[in-house]
C-alpha cells in the first residue's frame, strides 16, 4: 500500500455534527496522523457585548445564551461571581433550588450526549429511546422554571420562581422512573456488543496524557483523573446532598459512557435528596451596591470546569468579562486522542467528547 497522506475534511456542516466546526484530518491509509481544527464559526462577541450593551444585572440572561445545553451553569457562575462583588447573602433555599436545576440540566445534557454516541455507533433505535427517556426531565424543567431549555431561572440574589408541592411530587415520581431506565441503559452499554466491545480501547486517553493536556470533565474522569469542581469548592452545598465523584479507568469511549451514566445516577440521588430536604426561606434576597473589584469563579458544567472572570468598578457596566469554557480547554486533549485512530471512528469519538462549539466560540 502506498504511504500517501490524504486530507479529509469533516464539517463545517455535517450530518453527525450539531454545530458548525471544521476538522481537517490528515490520514495515512486509514489512520489519522494529524488533526487541524477550526472552531470559530459561531463566534458572536458575547464577552464584548456584556461590557458595552448590558448592565451587570442583565448579564446572567445574556451569558445563558452562550450555550443552550449548560445555560444554567453559565448564568449561575456569572451570578455567583457578581454576588461575591456585591453586598448580600443568598438564602439556603435559593442555593438548593439552584443546585437542583444544575443537576437536572446535567442529567439531560449527559443523556443527549449518550444518545448521540449510540447514534454514531449505528444504533438509531437506542438514540430514539434515550431521547424519549429524556423528555420527562425536560418536562420537570418546564414545570420548575417555565421553559424547557433557556430557563432564565437564576437572578442576582436568588432564583426567579418558587417550587410548589405538586411539582416536588412530580420530580420524585419522574426521577424514580428514570433511575430504573438508566440502570437498564447501564446494562445495555456494558453488555451490548455494538456499544461495549466496539468502543473498548477506541479513542483512549491515558492518565498521564490527561494530566499533561489538561483534560476536563468526564473525559478526564474517564481516564482516572480525579477532578471535579463540585468536590473542590464549597460555594454550593454539594457535600450535604450526597455528591460522590465518579471516575473510571481506560479513558476510552466506553469509559466515558460509563462515567456519564453513573454521574446521571449520582445526580438523580442528589436531586431526590434536595427535594426531600428543601429548607425554608426566601427565594430571593436583595443585593446592594455595584460590582467593584475582581472575581474569579469556577463551577462544574456538564462538560467540565467552567470559569468566569468578572471585573467591575462600581459602575452599572462591567469593565471586563472573561469566560473560559470546558470544551475550549480540552481541545489539546481532543487532538491527542484523534492521533493514531482509524478515520471511520472519528464521528463516534467526536460524539463521545460531547463538544460544545457555541461555548468555545462564544
Amino acid at each position, binding site marked *: 500500500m502506498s504511504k500517501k497522506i490524504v486530507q479529509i475534511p469533516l464539517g463545517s456542516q455535517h450530518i453527525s455534527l*450539531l454545530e*458548525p466546526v471544521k476538522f481537517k484530518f490528515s490520514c495515512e491509509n486509514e489512520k489519522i496522523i494529524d488533526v487541524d481544527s477550526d472552531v470559530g464559526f459561531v463566534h458572536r462577541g458575547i464577552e464584548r457585548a456584556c461590557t458595552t450593551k448590558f448592565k451587570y444585572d442583565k448579564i446572567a440572561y445574556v451569558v445563558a445564551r452562550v450555550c443552550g445545553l449548560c445555560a444554567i451553569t453559565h448564568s449561575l457562575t456569572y451570578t455567583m461571581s457578581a454576588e461575591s462583588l456585591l453586598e448580600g447573602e443568598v438564602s439556603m433555599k435559593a442555593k438548593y433550588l439552584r443546585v437542583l436545576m444544575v443537576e437536572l440540566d446535567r442529567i439531560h445534557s449527559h443523556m443527549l450526549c449518550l444518545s448521540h454516541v449510540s447514534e454514531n455507533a449505528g444504533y438509531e433505535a437506542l438514540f430514539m429511546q434515550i431521547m424519549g427517556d*429524556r423528555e420527562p426531565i425536560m418536562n420537570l424543567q418546564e414545570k420548575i422554571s417555565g421553559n424547557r431549555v*433557556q430557563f432564565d431561572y437564576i437572578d442576582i440574589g436568588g432564583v426567579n420562581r418558587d417550587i410548589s408541592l405538586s411539582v416536588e411530587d412530580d420530580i420524585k415520581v419522574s426521577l424514580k422512573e428514570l433511575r430504573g431506565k438508566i440502570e437498564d441503559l447501564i446494562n445495555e452499554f456494558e453488555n451490548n456488543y455494538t456499544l461495549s466491545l466496539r468502543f473498548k480501547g477506541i479513542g483512549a486517553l491515558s492518565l498521564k496524557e490527561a494530566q499533561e493536556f489538561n483534560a476536563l470533565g468526564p473525559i478526564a474522569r474517564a481516564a482516572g483523573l480525579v477532578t471535579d469542581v463540585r468536590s473542590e469548592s464549597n460555594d454550593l452545598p454539594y457535600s450535604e446532598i450526597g455528591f460522590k465523584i465518579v471516575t473510571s479507568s481506560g479513558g476510552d469511549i466506553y469509559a466515558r459512557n460509563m462515567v456519564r451514566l453513573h454521574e446521571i445516577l449520582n445526580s438523580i440521588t442528589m436531586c431526590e435528596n434536595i427535594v426531600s430536604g428543601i429548607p425554608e426561606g426566601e427565594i430571593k434576597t436583595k443585593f446592594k451596591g455595584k460590582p467593584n473589584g475582581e472575581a474569579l469563579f469556577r463551577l462544574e458544567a456538564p462538560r467540565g470546569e467552567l470559569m468566569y472572570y468578572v471585573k467591575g468598578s462600581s459602575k452599572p457596566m462591567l469593565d471586563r468579562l472573561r469566560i473560559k469554557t470546558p470544551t475550549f480547554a480540552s481541545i489539546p486533549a481532543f487532538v491527542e486522542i484523534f492521533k493514531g485512530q482509524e478515520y471511520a471512528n472519528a464521528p463516534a469519538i467526536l460524539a463521545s467528547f460531547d463538544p460544545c462549539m457555541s461555548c468555545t466560540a462564544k
Partner: protein
Amino acid sequence: MFDLKKYRKKSPWILHYNAGSCNGCDIEILASLAPKYDLERFGVLNTGNPKQSDVFLVTGPVTFRSRERLVELYTQMPSPKVVIAVGSCTCSGGVFRDMYNVEDGIDNYIPVDVYVPGCASSPELIIDGVVKALEILEQKSKEIELPKKLFGTIKEEEGVLNLREMALSVAQKSEQINAQKSEQNEN
C-alpha cells in the same frame, strides 16, 4: 412512474444548519424529531445533504463567518424550497442583535417563509412551523407550473419540470417571429 411531486409532499426532507445559535433551538429541533413529539410521523426526515432536501431549518443569528455557508447551502437546494427561521435570534437577532460579529437575522441574506418565535422555541411551535412550511411548499410547487401560460407546454422529466427546455422553446418562437419581421421589413 416515479412521481417526485407526490413524495415531496408526503415526505419532505429537512436540512438543518446552525448559523451561530446557542444550541438551545437545535436541541429542541432534535427533541421534536424524537419520540414524544415525533415530527417523523409527517414523513419528515433529517438529512445532511442540501441537494436532497426541501425544507431548510436555520437557527442562529448568522455570524460573520457562517453567512457564506448559509447562502451556499440555500443555493444548493433544489427548488421548490422553503426556509424556516427557528428561534427569536434567527428571526431578528434576538439577544445577539448589534453584537459586532452578528448579522441580525437570516432574512438579510436569504428569503424566509416561516418565522418561528421563542427563545428557545418549543417543539410544538417548531412542528407548527414545519406544517405551515409544507403548505407553502405545495403552493410553491404549483407556482412553478404557472409559466405554462407563457410557455404553452410543460416539459417534465422524471417528475421534475425542465425549465430550461421550456424557456428555450419560447426563445425559439420569438426568434422566428423576429426573423419574420425583419424579412417583412426588407421586403
